[in-house]
């Protein structure tokens, strides 16, 4: 069948249309919708940037919470001293620099060792900050200068757009192929002349920039933060879950996964506050068992099934 409009024109037009609606929307919707959209944007950025590194390379990182939390702390410490955009940039930059260090030190680790290393690192940072705050600062938590929801909305929208564009460009360039080949076989990638280590570190660091920036802006939503809020391990696990739920290989799948699960969490949390974790855990198990390729994989399964009949 011949398409009336080719994909090459349809998608960009559709996407810019959605984007324009997003920009125009805030005055016409309730504050609740704005807050919900902010959470969805946040999780999309965390998921897409997590998958930017962990998707093609198969290095399962559980350190998202560390970089997100660093962004939050940058915002809490510098929020009242510097303009908002500078704080956000700094949140991203400091995450980026820390990720370079982490990448350099954890190069030798592969598979599960890398995963538990990143998890341990993120917990070490959490407990160290906690210890510092209790023993040196004297209080556990900090206040964050509040920013109104509409401003947060526009900033998040901008970060989301930049994340998506950068991820898209990386994925569809020679660089994206390099990452895929590292995931397939590091030795082979090394043999065809790819600087495997440099590629891994740089990609890891780029992905954490967005996490840090998101943390810096989202911190203003909580107004009060402490280490167990900022470095909550859930921020490490949710992106993984969302990416797998949606379909780890496609940017669209990741957006879908993050969007659907954030909405679901919101509904569950308001409707069934006491069973929230139980239901979420069940979804997690069911997804791993029956949807190993995620929602986008489901589409292929259905297609295959229809053809067989």
């Amino acid at each position, binding site marked *: 069948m011949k398409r009336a409009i080719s994909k090459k024109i349809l998608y960009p037009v559709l996407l810019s249309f959605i984007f324009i609606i997003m920009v125009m929307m805030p005055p016409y919707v309730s504050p609740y919708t704005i807050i919900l959209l902010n959470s969805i944007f946040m999780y999309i950025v965390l998921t897409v940037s997590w998958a930017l590194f962990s998707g093609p390379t*198969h290095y*399962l990182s559980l350190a998202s919470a560390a970089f997100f939390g660093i962004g939050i702390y940058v915002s809490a410490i510098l929020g009242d001293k510097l303009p908002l955009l500078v704080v956000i940039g700094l949140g991203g930059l400091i995450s980026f620099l820390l990720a370079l260090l982490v990448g350099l*030190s*954890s190069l*030798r*680790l592969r*598979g*599960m*060792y890398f*995963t*538990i*290393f990143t998890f*341990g*690192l993120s*917990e*070490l940072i959490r*407990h*160290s900050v906690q*210890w510092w705050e*209790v*023993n040196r600062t004297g209080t556990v938590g900090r206040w964050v200068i509040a920013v109104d929801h509409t401003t947060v909305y526009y900033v998040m929208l901008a970060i989301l757009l930049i994340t998506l564009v950068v991820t898209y460009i990386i994925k569809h360039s020679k660089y994206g192929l390099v990452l895929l080949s590292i995931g397939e076989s590091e030795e082979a990638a090394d043999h065809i002349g790819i600087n495997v280590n440099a590629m891994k570190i740089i990609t890891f660091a780029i992905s954490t920039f967005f996490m840090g920036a998101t943390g810096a802006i989202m911190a203003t939503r909580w107004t009060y933060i402490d280490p167990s809020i900022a470095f909550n391990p859930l921020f490490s*696990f949710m992106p*993984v*879950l969302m990416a*797998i739920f949606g379909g780890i290989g496609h940017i669209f799948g990741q957006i879908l996964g993050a969007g659907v699960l954030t909405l679901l969490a919101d509904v569950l949390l308001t409707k069934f506050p*006491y*069973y*929230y*974790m*139980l239901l*979420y*855990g*069940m*979804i*997690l*198990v069911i*997804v*791993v*068992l029956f949807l*190993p390729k995620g929602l986008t994989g489901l589409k292929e399964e259905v297609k295959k099934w229809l053809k067989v009949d």
Partner: protein
Amino acid sequence: MSPLLFLDILIGGLMMGGLYALIAVGLSLQYGVARVLNVSHGEFIMLGAFATYSLYMLFGINPLLSLVMTGPFIFFIGFLIHRTLFKRLRRLSQSLDAFEGSSLLASFGLLFIIQNVALLIWGPDVKGYSYLSKTVNIWGAVYAANRLVALLFAILVALIFYFFLMRTRTGKAIRAAAQDVTTAQLMGVNIHWVLGLCFGLGALMAGFAGSLTSMMFEITPLIGLPYTIIAIIAVVLGGLGNILGSLIGGLILGLIGNIVMYIHPGLSLIAYYIIFLLLLLIKPTGILGK
């Protein structure tokens, strides 16, 4: 440092170490042999602790006796979870790496489920009871009797398990599976049964540790995760798949924790993480590894 203080720290460290060793051996069976990095391991400790608590509060059953009652039950839950969940995951996964990733996520799901169920049953409040809380005097140092009992019990369980592992046919099958699952299968080991057994035994160890924990500390539905993390560190410390190594790893962690606690109370968890990260970077095969 006076010799008395040294002894005090040593015995105190061994008491915690005994508990950690039990937990670590349990995780070693699940992660080292069955290749499931079971982050819900600590939740079985919590379940064991609450089961013991409830039996003691409702029926006045002696905590050491209730170990024998809750143990088989928790073993069965663990065995069943492997049968229904991880066995299927293993079959579906294309590679061992893929299986490790997906089983990690699935065990996170289990963590949420078990924690939520426990919250619904027992509520979020801190619970505790006192059992054998009299003090015992050893060479001038004073200890709570329940801690000594816990240490002795941990040693007893470890010894029994050691003989089971080294002297029985099933133990041999477990050791073979720990070395190489495929080869063990080729030698006629019914691998899914052995892996299920390992998972169940791991849960059993956690349940035992939980019962002992409830005698010494206050419990809430959220106590699990810190224990899981300690167990992961001890397992990596001892070397993946090395069951004896994780026992030693647990003891070492208990000792280090107590020494650091003596220097500054808030720092023991941070010390664990630093040791853990350095160890991963310098010698990921563990202290007993080649």
